[in-house]
C-alpha cells in the first residue's frame, strides 16, 4: 500500500518536473510565435500581448505568395538524400570498424575524427573550388546546386556518424552474430539480417542528427546555391533578415515556426525506433 503511494507520488513529482521543464524550454519559442502572429513589428514591439491584434496573415502570405513551400521542398530533398546516403555508408563502415580487424583500424577512425576539427570558416573557399571542379567534370550536373550540397553534407557527417554507430555496435552482444556465423551465414548476411535490424535506435538518432544539421545550416548553401529556385529553407529565412537592418521580423518568425514543424513531424515519426530495444527479436540463451 505504501509502496504504491510512494510510486504515485514519485510519478506526480516527475510529471510536474517535466512540465516545468517544458514550459521553461518553450518560452523563447512562445515569443517567436507571438511575433509571427503580428503583422508589423519586431521582437520588441508590444511587450504586452494585445490579443485582438493577432492574425495569421503572415502564415497565409508565406504559403501563398512566397517561395516558402519551394524552400521546404528543396530542404527536404537535400536533407533526406544526404541522410540516407550517409546512413548507408556509415552503417557498413561502422560495422567494419567494430567487428573486423584490419590494418589502420585503430588510428584510421581517430584520424578521420580529428581532421573534422579543423575550423571550417576557411573551408568555404576550398569547398567552392571543389564544387567548381565537379561542375566542370560533370558538365553542370553536380556543382553549385542541390546535388553539390548533398555531396558536402554527406561527406561532412560521415566520420562522426561512423564513430557513433561503431560505439553502438560495440555494445551489442556478439553471441547473436556468432550463432549466425556458426549456422553458416556469410559476413554480409550476418550484418544485413542480424545486426542491421537491431540498429534501429542508433540509426534513428544519427538520421535525425544528420537531417537537422543539414536542415538548419545556412553557411554553406548561401555560398553554394546560385539559383533562387534552389534555395533551401535556411537561405530563404536569411533573406527576411539579411536585408538592411532587418525589416521583416514577423514574417521571419512565421517562416521559422512553420519551418520547424517538418522536423517535429520527422522526429515524431522516428520516435518508435527510439524505443525499439534489444528485447525485440533477441535470441534468449
Amino acid at each position, binding site marked *: 500500500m505504501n509502496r504504491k503511494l510512494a510510486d504515485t507520488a514519485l510519478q506526480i513529482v516527475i510529471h510536474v518536473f517535466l512540465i516545468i521543464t517544458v514550459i521553461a524550454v518553450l518560452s523563447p519559442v512562445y515569443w517567436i510565435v507571438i511575433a509571427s502572429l503580428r503583422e508589423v*513589428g519586431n521582437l520588441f514591439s508590444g511587450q504586452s500581448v494585445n490579443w485582438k491584434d493577432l492574425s495569421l496573415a503572415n502564415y497565409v502570405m508565406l504559403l501563398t505568395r512566397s517561395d516558402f513551400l519551394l524552400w521546404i521542398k528543396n530542404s527536404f530533398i537535400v536533407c533526406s538524400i544526404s541522410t540516407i546516403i550517409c546512413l548507408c555508408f556509415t552503417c557498413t563502415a561502422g560495422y567494419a570498424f567494430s567487428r573486423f580487424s584490419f590494418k589502420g583500424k585503430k588510428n584510421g577512425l581517430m584520424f578521420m575524427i580529428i581532421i573534422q576539427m579543423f575550423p571550417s570558416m576557411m573551408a568555404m573557399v576550398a569547398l567552392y573550388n571543389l564544387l567548381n571542379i565537379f561542375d566542370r567534370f560533370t558538365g553542370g550536373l553536380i556543382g553549385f546546386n542541390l546535388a553539390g550540397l548533398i555531396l558536402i553534407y554527406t561527406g561532412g557527417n560521415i566520420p562522426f556518424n561512423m564513430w557513433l554507430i561503431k560505439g553502438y555496435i560495440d555494445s551489442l552482444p556478439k553471441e547473436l552474430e556468432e550463432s549466425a556465423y556458426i549456422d553458416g551465414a556469410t559476413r554480409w548476411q550476418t550484418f544485413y539480417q542480424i545486426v542491421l535490424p537491431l540498429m534501429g535506435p542508433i540509426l534513428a538518432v544519427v538520421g535525425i542528427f544528420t537531417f537537422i544539421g543539414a536542415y538548419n545550416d545556412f553557411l554553406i548553401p548561401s555560398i553554394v546555391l546560385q539559383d*533562387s529556385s534552389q534555395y533551401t529553407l535556411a537561405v530563404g529565412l536569411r533573406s527576411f533578415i539579411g536585408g538592411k537592418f532587418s525589416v521583416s521580423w514577423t514574417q521571419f518568425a512565421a517562416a521559422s515556426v512553420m519551418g520547424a514543424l517538418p522536423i517535429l513531424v520527422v522526429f515524431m515519426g522516428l520516435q518508435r525506433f527510439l524505443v525499439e530495444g534489444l528485447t525485440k527479436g533477441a535470441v534468449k540463451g
Partner: protein
Amino acid sequence: MPPQQGVLLMKRAAYVLLLCLSTLLFLSACGKKEEKTHLVVWTDMNETKSLNAATARFTARTGVPVKIVRVPLIELQPKFQVAAPVRQGPDLVTGPHNWVGPFATAGLISPVELTPDEATKYLPVSLKVMSFEGKIYGLPVSVEAPGLIYNKKFVSKPPQTMKELIAIAQEIDSGKYGDVKGFMYEMVDFYFSWAFFGGYGAYIFKDTPQGLDPKDVGLDSPEAVQAAQLILDFIKKYHLMEQGVTKDIADGRFLDNKLAMTYNGPWTLVNYKKQGISYGFAPLPKLDNGRYPSPLVSVLGVMLNRETRHRELAIDLMKEICSGESQIDIYLEGGRIPSRLDAQDDPRLALQAVLKENAGPGGDAPDAGAAGGKVSDEPDTGYRALSTIGGLSYAMDVTFVPNEEVKGILESARVGTPMPNIPAFTQVWQPMKEALQLITMEKQSPEEALKMQVDRIRKDILRMMR
C-alpha cells in the same frame, strides 16, 4: 523456406525501389546546363516589379533575357567575392557604394565609361562615391541618408536645434503622453552616431586631391571627443535612453506609438506607413556650434563583374536599370530616392504614396495607373519571376500630398558625408562600435576609448594593406 524467402524478396524489392527513388530525387536536384545567352543580376533589392519592368524593356530592345537572383544583403558581398573569381558570379551586382573600393582592389569589378552628357544626369555626389582611383565603377540607382523621424502625434514640428530636441524629449519623458519616450536610437552603431562626429568637424579619412587618405584617420581628434561626449550625455545628463538601445528596440517602440522621435533611415518608413503612423522626416537638428550633424550618405549602385562574358550588353542593362524611368518606378515601389536629377525633379515624386495592402483574390491588382509609374506584369522571358519577400508588392493608392519625406531625405543627404568607399573603411566599423560601447557603458572616458580604438584602426589598415 518459402515464407522467409518471400519476405526477403519483398525486402529486396523495397530496397531497389528506395534506390531508384533516391536516384530520381537526386537527379532532380542536379542543375541544368543553361545554353542561351542571358544576363544574370544579383541583388537584394525588394523592388521586383520595377526591376522586372526595366529588364523587360531591355529584353524588348536587345532580345537578350535577364535573370534576377535575389540574395540577402549580408550574403551578397561574401558570395560575390567567392564566386566572381571562378566565373560563377553574375554579370551585374547591386550593392551599397562602399563595396566599390574593396571589389575594385580585389579586381572583381571593372570600370565603365560614361559620356559627359550621361554623367551630368546624375547627382554629382552619387557618381563621386561610385568612383575609385579616378575611375567610375558603376552607376548609382538611389541615394539615401538617415535622419530624424518624428511622430506627428507627439511632435508637430521638427526641432531646429539639438537643444530643442533634448528639451522636447525630456518633456515627453516626464510623462506628458504617458509612457511614451522622447528620443531613442542605436548609439553604438557607428553608421548612425557618426553624424555627430561629422557635425563637430571630425573626419574619418582626410580628403586630399588624390582621394581619401587611408593612413590619416581623424576619429580621435578633440572634435570627435566632443561628439562622443554628447552621445554619453544623452544617457548620463539628459537621461533620454539607456546604453543598450538597439535599432530593433527603437523601431519597435516607434511602431507602437511609444516613441516620439528616432534617428533611422528611409527603409523603415515602409513599416511606419503600414502601421498608419503619421510621421515626418527631417535632418537632425543643428548642434550647438551651429552646424548640422552629418549623417552617412549611402548610394545603392550597380557594378559590373570583371569576368562577365557580355560586357557591352551588361553595361546596357546597367544603364537601363539606372535610367530615369526605372528610378521613378523604384521610388514608387520601395521609397528609394533616385540619384538621377531628372527623376528627382519629376512631379510624381512630389506625391506621398499611401500604401495599402492588396485585398484582391490571389495576385496583385494592377497599379491604379493614376499618376503612378508604369508597372508591368511578369515579363515574358521564360524565367521564373522573383517572389517578393521583404517588401511585398502592394497595390498603391496614390493620393496627392506634398511630399516632405523626399525633401527631408534629400536635405539630410545634402548635409551628410558620403560613406568612404576605400577598402580601409571596412576596418573602421568594429573598433568604433566597441569604442562607443565602452564609452556608453562608462568603462572608459571618451578620450581614452577613442584613442585606443583609433590606434587599433590605424594598425589594422596598415596590416590590411601590406
